[in-house]
């Protein structure tokens, strides 16, 4: 049960990564590799500031700001300096590796006895139900604190997602979506598409850094290596989400990305439980995304041939 709750919580935290990836990959059709650096940047900023004694809420907000700037730089490299999108992401990601080491001062920052947002959530649990230590769910016992943390994270993620959803329904957000959909058209309607791309990537990476900040606080450490494979991870979540809730409206797609992230984390947890070698995790993730990417085309081919 602890494993299940833990997986769902991490899935929820990483759903911010999924929503961020959805913004860059799907809305802007921009293969953004900044992700690997910005999720670590978020974790590094949050962890270092918390250790330094900054209030965890402020540390988390600053982590978002850090990712925002990183994404903005990728956008700037791509639009103003006309660098290929993939390469712009790689440049910023590589540079961020050094930045992250500088922010943390070493390769790993533990958060053992420091007060984090998670600590607040746990304290709140004690405050509301001081005498209960565990809760019985369908015959399984679960730690009451874990449940509260899960609930708080869930509420936070839902709030952030609603803000993102509402944002993309505003005039500015609609112009951003149009920039990804048909750049020539929206330019002819007077929108500075370069600015939209910069702003979009900034928001995307801000969310990803936020995801990193929550992850560091939940796991109790930030590590300079934690971003490896996160691009594919985010993409996998987005793809699962699209499969779950077919591509329809913006709201469904954002919900799908969140659900995809949780489901993917659960699948990974189950696979590891069954004895999959953790070293194989990344290759299996990559294979999974590969299959998910070619599936729609394959299915169409079969349909045309009348096989299914």
């Amino acid at each position, binding site marked *: 049960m602890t494993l299940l709750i833990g997986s769902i919580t991490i899935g929820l935290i990483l759903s911010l990564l999924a929503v961020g990836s959805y913004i860059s990959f799907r809305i802007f059709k921009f293969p953004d590799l900044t992700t690997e650096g910005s999720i670590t940047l978020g974790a590094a900023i949050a962890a270092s500031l918390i250790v330094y004694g900054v209030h965890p809420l402020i540390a988390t907000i600053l982590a978002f700001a850090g990712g925002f700037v990183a994404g903005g730089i990728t956008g700037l490299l791509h639009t103003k300096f006309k660098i290929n999108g993939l390469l712009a992401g790689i440049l910023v990601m590589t540079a961020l590796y050094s930045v992250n080491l500088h922010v943390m001062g070493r390769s790993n920052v533990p958060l053992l006895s420091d007060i984090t947002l998670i600590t607040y959530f746990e304290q709140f649990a004690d405050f509301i139900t001081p005498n209960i230590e565990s809760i019985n769910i369908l015959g399984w016992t679960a730690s009451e604190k874990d449940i509260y943390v899960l609930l708080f994270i869930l509420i936070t993620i839902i709030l952030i997602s609603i803000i993102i959803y509402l944002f993309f329904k505003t*005039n500015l957000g*609609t112009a951003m*979506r149009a920039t990804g959909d048909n750049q*020539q*058209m929206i330019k*002819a*309607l*007077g929108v*500075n*598409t370069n600015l939209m791309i910069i702003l979009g990537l900034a928001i995307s990476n801000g969310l990803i850094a936020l995801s990193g900040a929550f992850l560091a606080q939940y796991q109790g450490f930030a590590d300079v290596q934690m971003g490896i494979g996160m691009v594919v991870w985010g993409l996998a979540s987005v793809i699962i989400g699209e499969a779950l809730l077919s591509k329809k409206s913006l709201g469904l797609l954002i919900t799908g990305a969140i659900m995809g992230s949780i489901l993917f984390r659960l699948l990974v947890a189950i696979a590891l439980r069954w004895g999959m070698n953790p070293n194989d995790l990344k290759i299996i993730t990559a294979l999974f995304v590969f299959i998910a990417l070619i599936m729609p085309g394959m299915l169409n081919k079969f349909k045309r041939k009348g096989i299914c």
Partner: protein
Amino acid sequence: MLKIINIYKTFNPGTANQVKALQGVSCEVEEGSFVAIVGTNGSGKSSLLNAVAGTFIPDLGKIILDRMDITKFPEYKRAKHLGRVFQNPFTGTAPDMTIAENLTLASKRGQSRGLGWAIPKSVLKEFQKRVKPLNMRLEDRLENPMGKLSGGQRQALTLLMASWQKPKLLLLDEHTAALDPKTANKVIQLTEKVVEKDNITTLMVTHSMQQAVNMGNRILMMHNGKIVYDFEGDDKKRLKVNDLLSLFDEIRRKEQINLSTAEMLEKNYI
């Protein structure tokens, strides 16, 4: 209204693909006039339109729109004053967004876009009212994605979107070339309606001599990056399709003579 002063543009200068697209084009367009631009392939007619639209910045020369020097304005900044319809019916609309979202984007052309709600309930009625005259039954399908519509429907909507807020200048770039004759006809009728309603100054590049003769009050004929003929007023009214075609032949013959003269000179003197 629009003043084009001696503009030059060479693409890929200094390479094998060098194209001298515009070689000293000057013209002045009065407010409310409808100018058809004709010419052979590669004559520079689309380049002239793109220079005005800001797709590229000319190497030399100036473009003045309504006493404003827009020569160096980036594309999105000029868009405030321009309505544009493209040759490809899919260029003017965003396929993954709904018709209503496309319309709302167009209704804010050139304005700053803040955090206001993109489609408040109140504008849907107006959208329906303005889409209805297209007679394509799109008014009940505003929530459908644009990508589901046919090329003709999308081109009609693009035209509506380009003129949603009255532009200072409407640029039509062979906007019926990719449509079947029947749909093209419909879009042409719509164009006349839209232009007449608000008396919009219009530049229309066309490959159809028929369109050029039937529509508007002025014809510019381009060749090799220059304006070679300019018909206005009664001259334009008298002009027939055959007259235009014979002018094209004349240009071609002149060119052949020039080529053969050059060849002869080469043989005899080099």
